[in-house]
């Protein structure tokens, strides 16, 4: 069952298409990461999701409700933490949490206190004097203390030092595991996402490149290296599932996007007499870079 459904979403700012025909579904209980470089359209997508921005076309449904109809009932079940969110800077963290408490009938004050302690947040310090990371942690506590069904994090790791980043990610991981929350996370930090996410979508220039579980993604992408019997250019046409084919001397390299048992036979068919074939697993980063390049090449004609 999906907790977020995005259907052919478009969002335009003047002539700029920030999000273009984006469709994806977020399974309930998953840690779903929306990956993309800066300016890819991640934050815009999230702002449309939570009704900060209106879609130009298409629809977004959160918890089964159209994003444009989201109201207090839904926001009591949604946690939202963004790097750019305006927190009430002149307040102390304690005053801030006290302000948030009446907004949520399910606010769990002991839970909030334990979270603040665990994340090492100084409750009596003003938000304005907190470091960026501690501010993000305070925002996280204010978004977790009522045990939301859905937690939305927009670039939560941006600008955080490794220690804070680790604490933050660890906290989120641990709690989502315990509480069975759904986490929707937008980031350009692929390495961090790889640790957290079990489901992933990649977006570039407002367009969706892929959306699937991390396990499936890592399983179907392989960097293939073939040592051929003789030098020469790669003979076209190559299978459409191969990305970034290149040849240097007798070695040919490409990325197989649908790696399975039949892949070896396909390679043997394209490279008869190959001396060796090596299939290397790929990191999320490598997969993303390959897809982004292929997308750029396709866009350039």
């Amino acid at each position: 069952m999906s907790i977020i459904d995005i259907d052919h979403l478009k969002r335009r700012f003047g002539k700029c298409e920030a999000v273009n025909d984006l469709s994806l579904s977020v399974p309930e209980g998953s840690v779903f990461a929306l990956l993309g470089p800066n300016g890819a359209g991640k934050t815009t997508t999230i702002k449309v999701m939570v009704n900060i921005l209106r879609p130009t076309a298409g629809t977004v449904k959160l918890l089964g409700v159209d994003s444009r109809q989201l109201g207090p009932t839904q926001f009591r079940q949604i946690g939202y933490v963004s790097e750019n969110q305006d927190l009430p800077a002149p307040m102390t963290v304690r005053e801030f949490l006290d302000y948030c408490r009446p907004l949520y009938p399910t606010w769990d004050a002991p839970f909030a206190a334990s979270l603040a302690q665990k994340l090492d947040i100084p409750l009596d310090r003003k938000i304005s004097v907190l470091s960026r990371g501690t501010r993000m942690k305070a925002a996280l506590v204010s978004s977790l203390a009522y045990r939301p069904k859905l937690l939305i994090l927009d670039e939560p790791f941006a600008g955080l030092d490794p220690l804070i980043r680790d604490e933050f990610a660890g906290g989120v991981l641990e709690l989502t595991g315990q509480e069975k929350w759904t986490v929707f996370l937008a980031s350009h930090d692929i390495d961090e996402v790889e640790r957290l996410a079990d489901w992933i979508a990649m977006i570039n220039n407002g367009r969706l490149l892929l959306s699937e579980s991390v396990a499936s993604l890592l399983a179907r992408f392989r960097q293939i290296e073939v040592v051929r019997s003789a030098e020469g250019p790669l003979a076209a046409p190559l299978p459409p599932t191969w990305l970034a084919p290149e040849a240097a001397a007798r070695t040919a390299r490409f990325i197989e996007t649908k790696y399975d048992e039949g892949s070896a036979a396909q390679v043997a068919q394209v490279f008869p007499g190959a001396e060796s074939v090596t299939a290397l697993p790929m990191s999320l980063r490598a997969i993303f870079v390959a897809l982004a390049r292929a997308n750029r090449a396709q866009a350039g004609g």
Partner: protein
Amino acid sequence: MKLIFNQALKDLRLLRWLLAAWVLALVVAHGSLLYTASLGDADATSLVASSGFHSMIGMVGMAVLILFAALLVQRDSPVSSDAFWLTRPMSAGAMLASKLLVSIVVLVLLPSALEIGDYLVTGVGRRWLPPYRVPLQLAWTLPVLALAAVAADVPQFVLVALLEVVLLMAASGLAAAFGLPPAGNTHFDTFLALVTLASACVLAWQYLTRRRTVAAVFLAVAPFVLTLGIDLWPWQAETPVAYPEEKRKAISVAADREAIASVLLGGDRVIQIPLTVTGKPPNTGLGLVYNSVHVWLQQAGSRTRFDIGAVFTNVRPGAEALEDAPLAPDSPETRALARVLDSALAGTALMNAQVTTLGALRPAIAFFVRRADLRRLAGTTGTLHLEFDLMAQEYGAYPGVPIATGTRYDGPALRATIVADRRTRYAISLDLRETASGWHVPESYSTHFLLRNRAAGQSLLKIAGWAIGRSNYGELGMILPLAPSLVVRWRTLGFGRVRGQTFVQTFASHEEARRWAKDAELVVIPTRDAGQFHVVLELPEFKVGG
């Protein structure tokens, strides 16, 4: 409701320093006001100093109010996409309600309540309580909230506010081009009500829809609609009370062609046409209604309109009190005054020109013939049309009180005490401490002041109805309450209370001024508007050029 209070408490906590500054400004302002009220009548220096301090605190208070109102909205902006409340279970309606709650309690009701306290403490009494206090304060507060609601941050708010001021000025300029008076002057109540309503609409729209474009267009158009619309819309075209026909028939108004004066000013010609009024009923003054004056030259197939330079509305109550005497002793200074009149034709010098015609006490209309028209009309003649309204003002007995410190005047429209008088070569100045002012007097009433010296058979006239009107009072009193029980400093003599360049050398010496004032009395004439009537005059064979 719980969420609204929670939000309101959060705002008060966030803005606590500004709140403290606001309360401090109010306390200081009211403290200074009560202190002034407690001063003895004779302590004029302290009164003036205290009034100045009060004005200064008023300006500080205004700055704090603007900042408080702007930040109140900006802390939970409806247009910033990073605003915290947008992703929290707080409905737009609840957020709007909390903002209105805080602003109305802190910025409207608190100062109003303090003002009520002033009335009670100073013993002025409840019957003098100004009915406009709360609407006026709302009319200041809501526009600031509305402008802050279309701005994403404070710098943008400053920009939007400046832009709005520029648009208001442009709208006023446009109104002037159409020959319309500034709406804020002519229909103050309606203007304020519309400003308040429009601001409330923008604020509500912004929070409920968060669509800035519509609000921005509205704010851009509103100054023009408000400024021009009030005077142009039929529903606002108030029909003034007509002066009874039988009385009007007895009055004759004519242009005195023999006394027409003209002067060249920077290539333009200014022409002043004095009017002769006869047959006025007793105890009736007549004033030209400035906005109604139109002058044009009709020639075969063409009509040339002229800009109005100045209108001397000097057939006013009090004229009878002058007992046909010259307004001031004949002296080199009074002859100099006649020369000043020439420059006054440009409308730059004598704003309150009630005594400028030195006993003639005739209304006059001055208009400009611009350089281009002068050239075009040179050597030609036509029929000059003068069209205007005259307002009849009736008044009853006007007892005089001696000019002496401590003398009290207790009339229907004014209760005042003379707290100081100064007699210089240039003028006799009186400081009147009011216990009730024209603020509370219905608009159809005004108060006129006159210094009369029966022995010398001379009087000096000053019309002060507008000066204590709401526009003037509002400059000081809109933000911080200023009970009209305190000092209003009048320069009873001398032209214009604030225009330093317009002083007139009325007396030949200090000694003469002292002597004159010794036998003089202050006459306060409350008047009632009895109705107005339209006059059209035609001057055939009139030559404006050459």
